[in-house]
């Protein structure tokens, strides 16, 4: 942990009310200021105790504190360094280690995820048993969505009309396996807005999950592979539709800072979020009406980590007939946060319930965000409370409007687990 980064914190506490765990528990140790204090204790020589590690593990990595901090504390970098330190120094309980090993040996590997798909039905039936074995396993199963029908994407999609740009597209591991329809919609929208889309096959994981969990070496391996893949594809801009992946890719240069060569290659590749890119490009394709009330949810890795709030709203408002509602407390994380709902199921659940209540208060028919993990999490919480909401990715809304079709997510409740 870099003491210089820690020193930037002036202990003013402005970040406290933005922090989901502080909002839940009201304890200093589970606030950004408290966690930074724990980091400084460690830097001054206190070993990582299980209590200390627990407070770091409880951090969602939502980066709301980075947005809130007037002193420019780089908490994102601090917590990444801390997690890596915890992984190196802190010996976890064997049961905990086993579950972490399982998750990190699974999620970032599309082929392993695919192999798992047929077993999900069985796992669901075994859920109570798994839950008893380890709450994290139960949470993992409860959250697994019904995989969408597999759609094979072509390697290259031609621009419709005049070609305005050539871009690469990241397919992402979880997105690709569980939400292939979002990738298909993204490719179509880009093409209809005049982009030639290059989609390299076998992309693999971008490393986001590994960075956010302190698995630095794994992260660096994945980052290099991703950079190489897009270099070979001959693009200098990569469009990403998953908020978590986009924010990590934007930080490749820092992750690879040890190697000037790789850092340079990372900088040469521009990562943009889909909404950011489309807003920058400006609309050309015709928008068809979509009469629906939408609540837009700010995914933390889009709003806090990438500062992208206005663009998706602007795009949604551009759809005729669509009425956009703001969700109160929109800055607060829904508790999904990558692997958080797997490792910290009870906090994730409380945050999900809180968010679900706020979403319900908007009266919207459809919940839209740039991160399927969030929408799944919120939809599950709404079901727990006896409600129901349909969910979609921003790309799917634009796709439906551009093509002028009645989208499937308006007919059926999305993301409902098979029972």
């Amino acid at each position, binding site marked *: 942990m870099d003491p210089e980064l820690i020193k930037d*914190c*002036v202990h003013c506490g*402005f970040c406290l009310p933005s922090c989901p765990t502080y909002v839940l528990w009201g*304890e*200093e140790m589970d606030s950004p200021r408290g966690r930074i204090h724990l980091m400084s*204790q460690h830097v001054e020589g206190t070993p990582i105790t299980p209590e200390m590690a627990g407070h770091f593990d409880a951090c969602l990595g939502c980066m709301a504190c980075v947005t809130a901090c007037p002193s420019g504390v780089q908490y994102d970098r601090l917590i990444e360094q801390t997690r890596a330190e915890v992984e190196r120094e802190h010996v976890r309980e064997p049961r905990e280690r086993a579950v972490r090993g399982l998750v990190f040996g699974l999620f970032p590997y599309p082929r392993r995820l695919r192999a798992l798909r047929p077993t999900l039905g069985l796992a669901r039936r075994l859920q109570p048993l798994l839950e008893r074995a380890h709450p994290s396993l139960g949470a993992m199963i409860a959250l697994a969505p019904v995989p969408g029908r597999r759609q094979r994407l072509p390697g290259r999609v031609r621009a419709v009309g005049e070609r305005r740009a050539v871009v690469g597209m990241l397919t992402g591991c979880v997105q690709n396996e569980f939400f292939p329809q979002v990738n298909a919609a993204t490719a179509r929208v880009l093409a209809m807005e005049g982009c030639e889309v290059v989609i390299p096959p076998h992309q693999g994981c971008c490393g986001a999950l590994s960075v956010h969990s302190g698995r630095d070496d794994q992260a660096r391996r994945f980052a290099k592979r991703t950079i190489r893949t897009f270099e070979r594809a001959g693009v200098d801009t990569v469009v990403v539709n998953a908020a978590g992946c986009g924010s990590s890719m934007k930080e490749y240069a820092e992750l690879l800072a040890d190697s000037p060569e790789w850092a340079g290659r990372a900088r040469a590749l521009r990562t943009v979020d889909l909404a950011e890119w489309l807003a920058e490009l400006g609309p050309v394709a015709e928008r068809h009406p979509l009469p629906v009330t939408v609540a837009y949810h700010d995914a933390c890795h889009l709003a806090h980590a990438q500062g992208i709030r206005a663009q998706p709203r602007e795009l949604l408002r551009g759809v005729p007939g669509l009425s956009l509602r703001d969700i109160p407390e929109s800055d607060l994380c829904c508790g999904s946060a990558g692997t958080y709902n797997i490792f910290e199921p009870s906090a994730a659940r409380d945050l999900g319930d809180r968010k679900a209540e706020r979403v319900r208060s908007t009266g919207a028919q459809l919940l839209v965000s740039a991160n399927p993990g969030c929408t799944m999490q919120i939809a599950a919480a709404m079901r727990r409370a006896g409600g129901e909401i349909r969910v979609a990715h921003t790309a799917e809304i634009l796709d439906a409007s551009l093509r002028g079709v009645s989208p499937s997510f308006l007919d059926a409740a999305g993301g409902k687990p098979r029972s």
Partner: protein
Amino acid sequence: MLAELIGRLGEVLEPEAVITDPVRLRTYECDGLTYHRATPGVAVLPENAEQVAGVIRLCNEYGVPFVARGSGTGLSGGALPRTDGVLIVTSKMRAIVEIDLPNRRAVVEPGVTNLAITEAVRDQGYYYAPDPSSQQVCSIGGNVAENSGGAHCLKYGFTVNHVEACEIVTPDGDIVTLDRADPGYDLLGAFIGSEGTLGVTTKVTVRLSRTPEAVTTVLAAFENIEQGGEAVSAIIAAGILPAAIEMMDALAIAAAEAAVACRYPENAGAVLIVELDGPSAEVERQFALLSQICSKAFELRVAEDPAERAAIWRGRKSAFAAVGRISPAYIVQDGVVPRTSLPEVLAGIDSLSREHGIKVANVFHAGDGNLHPLVLFDDTEPGAGERAEIVSGRILDLCIEHGGSITGEHGVGVDKARYMPRMFTDADLDTMQLVRCAFDPRGLSNPGKIFPTPRLCGEVPGVRKGVHPLVESGKAEQF
């Protein structure tokens, strides 16, 4: 003593509400003034007044001191824990108990943040008027303890003008309500601003104000601070009472710019933020006057909508925390001077700064002469901290010399206790102690704060020898 007390906390609190792990405890070692640190003997997170009272009764039983803490944003070390005591943290007591719009009141628990009150009633056209810059995080319990103010206190007054009643746990563990409407002594008035030394607040009844019909916010940029100061005097002389008049100097502007890119006019030696509010016609009239008065300003920016207003305020509200961007360490000073001495005092601060080679950024509530000089230093440079301390202390001397005060709104805490004798005579201080003793005869409630050396209250160390002059002359009685 403490160990025995800790053993019995389970009678009052859930196990998770008692923090004894040393690593976790240390996160509570300081408030917003990190200069003073002490790890609490134990920290507790009660959820209601009964639990607070239970803890305080145990403290009485064992003669253990206790310190209340809200959000820990205080800037005078008021919530500095005692290593031999209990830290009572109110951050789990954050329910809004009741909102009574017809009577314009709200009842809230002490851990509720200042801004949360406004957010709860904003849509109905109301707000809670005192607005410290830390309003999104500081607790109402802390505001009551510090009698906090903010930019808009020029027109609307401090916390004391907006609190109707407080439920408190007295230092001997009774739950009582102090209500402004009660006949007899204004005990509520004595309690507000007592910095946690007269008991712990467990519920606050605040007054809600109507959102003004019109608000106009003006940003005026001047070439130098003197021109800004003249404008302030002229505004007041013209009989305008703005909701706020805030001033920032070039260094403070640079910090805010670095932190939040507030885009204040370039090359400004000083900016004034003047906010006019009230009925539309009145605001228009005042604005016309104000534009004339600010004729020396090289740029006058007027906010037309809430977004633009927020943009103007953003720089000012972030200023304290933002100096972290331009200096590794700093001291936030808080002093008051009569408005008319502003130019002299500012010149004095400037020469102190030169003399000691320590930069000072100035942010202040210019309307009521409340200065917040930010004394900047590099804590890795040998001797810099000491020099900053000297400059910071001398600024307070300047304030006193000009007939002002050593604190406007951040309180005395531990940090300024040693300056109290410069402002008050022994007799003054002893009189204050008598009030303290009436509430807290054993000196258990936040001891070591406000007063340089504890005196008078029976059991406290350093007891004054002999009878207090006021007692002797029959003007006061000792409890």
